[in-house]
């Protein structure tokens, strides 16, 4: 729950006390919901009494650069971010700010130039291909893509797509199918969809299938890259509800979005990425009500639904001018 202040972030973003949605208080808040996932999960995963489990995700001083020579560009620089168990962190930033790069670096799809990434206490920085595969097969971290149309193989039925992560783990086909079925309810899908192809589903259904596929391995951390950007508002609300249930089940979420509005309602903490650097982190309430960095202020003032009336155009222009200097 510590976040190292990046060079541009103002001091004082560090949280002295754990946020209200930390691991301890979650079970009391909604015992009915949390039971469902907990039952299926081996007891070794739940935090034992007295011991403080390591954060699900620790990122420190992460730097990722693309290209070579003169065309080299820095996508991420000095990004540090911790995600505690069951915590939901919203990562906000505009296009090109490095949001997706951050997700891909955590998942091992992009190699980091500097910094460390630890998943569940395991440092993955020096992992070769084989060790990454072993880590991924445990299903601790899962990912939901932005585009629900292309993230499902058009030639595989929904059942095939849902069972794939389990089959990769070596779960027998019958058992994998049975386990996949139990997750349909959570994402509000019916069993009759299992035999269909992705092309025969609506965008919202497809995205819920993608969420269900990420859940079948019972991950402790799910990274969602713009999960609602491609959806209409009704489906957006539905996905957000599913994510809230997940959060109360103790799954840590990293919710990546360009839209402060969709993150505000679900995130415990918000991290703001601007041009590859983490400019501000804090509890969701703090960031929205008392934004410190000019970029965050611009974001908040550009989202009218969040903060009363939209700010004056002149004020926003002034903030933009400040950012470009």
């Amino acid at each position: 729950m510590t976040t190292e202040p990046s060079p541009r972030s103002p001091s004082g973003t560090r949280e002295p006390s754990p946020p209200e949605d930390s691991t301890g208080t979650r079970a009391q808040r909604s015992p009915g919901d949390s039971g469902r996932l907990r039952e299926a999960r081996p007891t070794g995963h739940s935090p034992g009494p007295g011991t403080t489990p390591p954060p699900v995700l620790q990122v420190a001083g992460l730097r990722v650069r693309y290209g070579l020579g003169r065309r080299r560009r820095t996508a991420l620089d000095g990004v540090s971010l911790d995600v505690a168990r069951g915590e939901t962190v919203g990562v906000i930033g505009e296009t090109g700010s490095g949001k997706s790069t951050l997700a891909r670096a955590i998942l091992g799809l992009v190699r980091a130039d500097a910094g460390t990434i630890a998943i569940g206490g395991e440092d993955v920085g020096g992992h070769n291909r084989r060790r990454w595969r072993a880590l991924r097969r445990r299903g601790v971290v899962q990912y939901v893509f932005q585009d629900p149309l292309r993230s499902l193989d058009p030639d595989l039925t929904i059942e095939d797509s849902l069972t794939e992560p389990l089959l990769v783990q070596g779960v027998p086909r019958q058992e994998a199918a049975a386990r996949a079925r139990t997750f349909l309810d959570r994402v509000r899908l019916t069993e009759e969809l299992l035999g269909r192809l992705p092309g025969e589903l609506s965008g919202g259904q497809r995205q819920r299938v993608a969420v269900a596929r990420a859940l079948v391995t019972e991950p402790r951390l799910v990274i969602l890259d713009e999960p609602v950007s491609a959806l209409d508002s009704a489906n957006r609300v539905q996905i957000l509800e599913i994510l809230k249930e997940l959060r109360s089940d103790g799954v840590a979420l990293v919710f990546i979005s360009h839209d402060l509005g969709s993150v505000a309602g679900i995130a415990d903490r918000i991290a703001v990425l601007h041009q590859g650097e983490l400019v501000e982190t804090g509890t969701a309430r703090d960031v929205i009500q008392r934004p410190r960095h000019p970029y965050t202020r611009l974001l908040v003032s550009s989202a009218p639904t969040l903060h009363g009336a939209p700010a004056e155009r002149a004020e926003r222009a002034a903030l933009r001018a400040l950012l470009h200097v």
Partner: protein
Amino acid sequence: MVRRVLALTTGRIAVAILTLVALLAVLGPLLAPQDPLATSDTMLAAASGDHWLGTDYLGRDVFSRLLDGSRVSVLGSLEVALTALLVGAVPGILSVYLGRGFEWITLRLADTLVALPFLLFAVAVIALLGNGITQAMLVTGVLVSPLFYRVARAATLAVARSPYVEAALISGASLGWVVRRHVWVKVLPPIAVALAQTIGVGFVIVSSLTFLGIGVQPPAPTWGGLLASDLGYLSHRPWAPLTPALLIMVTVWGSNLLADAIRDVSGEAGRALVNQRRARANRPDKADPAPAGGTR
């Protein structure tokens, strides 16, 4: 896949034709009524009771030669196609996944093969390996393989970076898993088309090599060889090249039909096509089931 191909009319026709050709290849030499190599005094004769398709310029029975040559012809072109598939398509798929080094080497090898003059290379390899149908077909297969390499590589590249492949990788899938489950289905249709085309080209290659004395040795008959020798006597028997030409054409047509059928039924569109037909057959009142529902 097999059942879906057979659900299409074109698929059934293709399979029927190719089965006939395969039977001809297996049983042809046994069915030949006369010795395909025996010469006689009746040269360039017209069709008669003794010689159903007449005789050639050495008085040999054309019908027997056609039947006897079918095995070599079919096996030869199959050998070409399978060699090309193995040498071309497999590295084509793997070139996308096995890293820059493998990619660079195989790409340059493919370029080199394209640049080599075909006949010269064939003659050189025959000189090294000895003359024979197998050597000739292997050489031809290797020379045709860049087509398969390119086609397989292009189809693989189209899906290699797709989110569903990345999703599989994030779940810990191995390279083999990704290729088997996601890539192969997308690569198969274009490869099938290339394969059918190569089988057709194979017949022509077998005959042109025969003409040069490479591969099948002169007295032994092949379809392409018959066509070539008949063409020299067009003024005497203008109808003679028709039969071997028709046989080659029908075989090529059959394999093209099969390739088309495979392309039609594979992938999303193909499955939808077959499902639609089945649905229409089962429920004539509801011809087009609307894909919807599932929300609560």
